[in-house]
């Protein structure tokens, strides 16, 4: 058999390009369904773990999926707004803790999330560089967001203008980056956190006097104007209107226990209520149910493509044997048994399959290395 492998390897090396194409094709046939399954499983795990860590979510009545995606994964479109009154109601009920979220603005393509200090403890977020939020106008940036924005503690970020043509609108806010979060492999890596009041300043609800700064990066560049909270103007910042009316995109509710959760859920069952409380795990479970229904169709498509590809490879091998008719005749004329041809061809296929499996394993290992990044990118 070793001679068969010797001849097989000589043949495959001589026709290295043909062998490489076959090898890559077979590796892809093995890899495609495997990586899709791994990816779906990772998406499921990522979505589920985040949702499972958030027992209840409160927000304006509407799409539960938008509410979940917008407040847990900081992705998706605009979420209907609720108000600080909803969070206060939870606090006042004594049934659980309420963590307000206001995820509506961005900076350089990175979402700005306004929240309270409780959020960092709740999500077990730690500072890798710098310090945590202390005063108005400061930001703590997620690890991936910091990489994307190229910022470190001491740098500044400016909120993106909400509407370029809103001449009467609020100026963007320039904020100090005071800390970078340790990476967590969750959507928290991809956002910049500010205190909830800072996000209301961006909204224009809170403002200070003499806070505008006009700056031209160079002599021919347009002058840009933004608000900035500094030590000298910090005391002049104030908010108008009742705090209960200030906007939120959602409120994470951490109930005292399951009984408290049930009571809270019951309070918002009224279809006329403007606020709803949802269990994110149920929303995500439904979403995953849809995804996996799609996935089963995808599996069938991949299986059909794999069958077609395998048939093509079988045809290529058959045609290759036809082209090798002279070689096969020669070894028969020299005196080799018919089984020798079978052994040599089998050895070639074994080497090809082994190389394909090794390639597929290497490709899958590479995929596994970048899987988390890919999952986070897909869930953006």
């Amino acid at each position: 058999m070793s001679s068969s492998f010797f001849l097989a390897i000589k043949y495959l090396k001589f026709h290295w390009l043909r062998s490489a194409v076959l090898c890559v094709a077979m590796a892809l046939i093995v890899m495609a369904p495997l990586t899709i399954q791994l990816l779906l499983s990772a998406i499921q795990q990522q979505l589920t773990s985040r949702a499972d860590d958030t027992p209840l979510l409160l927000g304006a009545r509407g799409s539960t999926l938008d509410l979940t995606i917008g407040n847990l994964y900081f992705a998706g479109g605009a979420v209907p707004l609720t108000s600080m009154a909803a969070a206060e109601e939870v606090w006042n009920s004594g049934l659980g803790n309420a963590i307000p979220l206001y995820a509506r603005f961005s900076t350089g393509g990175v979402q700005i999330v306004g929240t309270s200090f409780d959020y960092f403890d709740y999500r077990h977020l730690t500072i890798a560089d710098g310090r945590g939020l202390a005063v108005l106008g400061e930001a703590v940036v997620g690890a991936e967001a910091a990489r994307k924005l190229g910022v470190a503690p001491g740098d500044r970020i400016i909120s993106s203008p909400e509407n370029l043509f809103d001449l009467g609108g609020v100026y963007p806010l320039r904020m100090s980056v005071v800390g970078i979060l340790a990476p967590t492999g969750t959507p928290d890596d991809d956002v910049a956190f500010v205190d909830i009041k800072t996000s209301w300043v961006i909204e224009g609800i809170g403002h200070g006097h003499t806070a505008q700064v006009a700056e031209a990066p160079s002599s021919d560049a347009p002058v840009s104007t933004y608000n900035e909270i500094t030590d000298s103007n910090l005391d002049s910042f104030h908010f108008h209107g009742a705090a209960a009316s200030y906007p939120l995109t959602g409120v994470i509710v951490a109930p005292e226990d399951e009984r408290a959760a049930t009571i809270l859920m019951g309070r918002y069952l009224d279809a006329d209520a403007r606020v709803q409380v949802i269990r994110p795990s149920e929303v995500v479970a439904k979403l995953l149910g849809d995804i996996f229904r799609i996935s089963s169709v995808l599996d069938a498509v991949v299986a059909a493509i794999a069958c077609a590809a395998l048939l093509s490879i079988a045809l290529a091998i058959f045609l290759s044997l036809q082209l090798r008719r002279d070689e096969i005749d020669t070894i028969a004329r020299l005196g080799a048994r018919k089984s020798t041809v079978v052994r040599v061809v089998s050895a070639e296929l074994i080497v090809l399959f082994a190389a394909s499996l090794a390639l597929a394993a290497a490709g899958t290992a590479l995929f596994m290395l970048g899987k988390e990044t890919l999952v986070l990118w897909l869930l953006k």
Partner: protein
Amino acid sequence: MIRVRDLQFAYGTGGFGLAVPSFDVAAGQKVAVVGPSGSGKTTLLNLMSGILSPDSGEISVAGTTISSLSDRDRRAFRIRTIGFVFQDFGLTEYLSARDNILHPYRITDALRLDAATRERAEFLAQSVGIADRLDSFPRTLSQGEKQRVAICRALIAEPSVILADEATGNLDPDTKEVILDVLFEQATLAQAAVVAVTHDHELLPKFGQVVDFRQFRRGGGA
């Protein structure tokens, strides 16, 4: 060494046919087979090597009646006993000249490839003047070099019988004589019989016996 008796063979019904009443080759004897193209010379070599099986008659090689062996036994017998130089060389494109010479050892369990065999391959290549081409692949070899590789492959297993189909057909006149001398020298060393098909009448004096095929041919033919 080779005994042919009342041999009859035809390619299918009404196809080309061959009849050889009687034909003997002694051990160490060198026999030239001559005749016009399509007269059945290659067919005779294929019958003598067991590649083809006669319709009737008897072929014995080295004491074994190969015409009565099964296909499997004929193959085993052929690779151990007969060295064949094919008209089309029959070299394997993806093997170097060295591996082509050693090829019979890699396609059967009947022969054992060892260091002595490898040395013999080097020696044979040296003898026919292709020692510096052993690592080259057939596509980079000239027709003459391919022919020499094919001759080395026929000689490598020290066969009792060497069958050569136009073994010197692709060589220049000077080289033809050299190659034929090498072939005969190796055959003499092994006391092997040589049956060579040739169109080259200038080489006939080197053979001990000449068989003219015009006397054997029958039926329609190519």
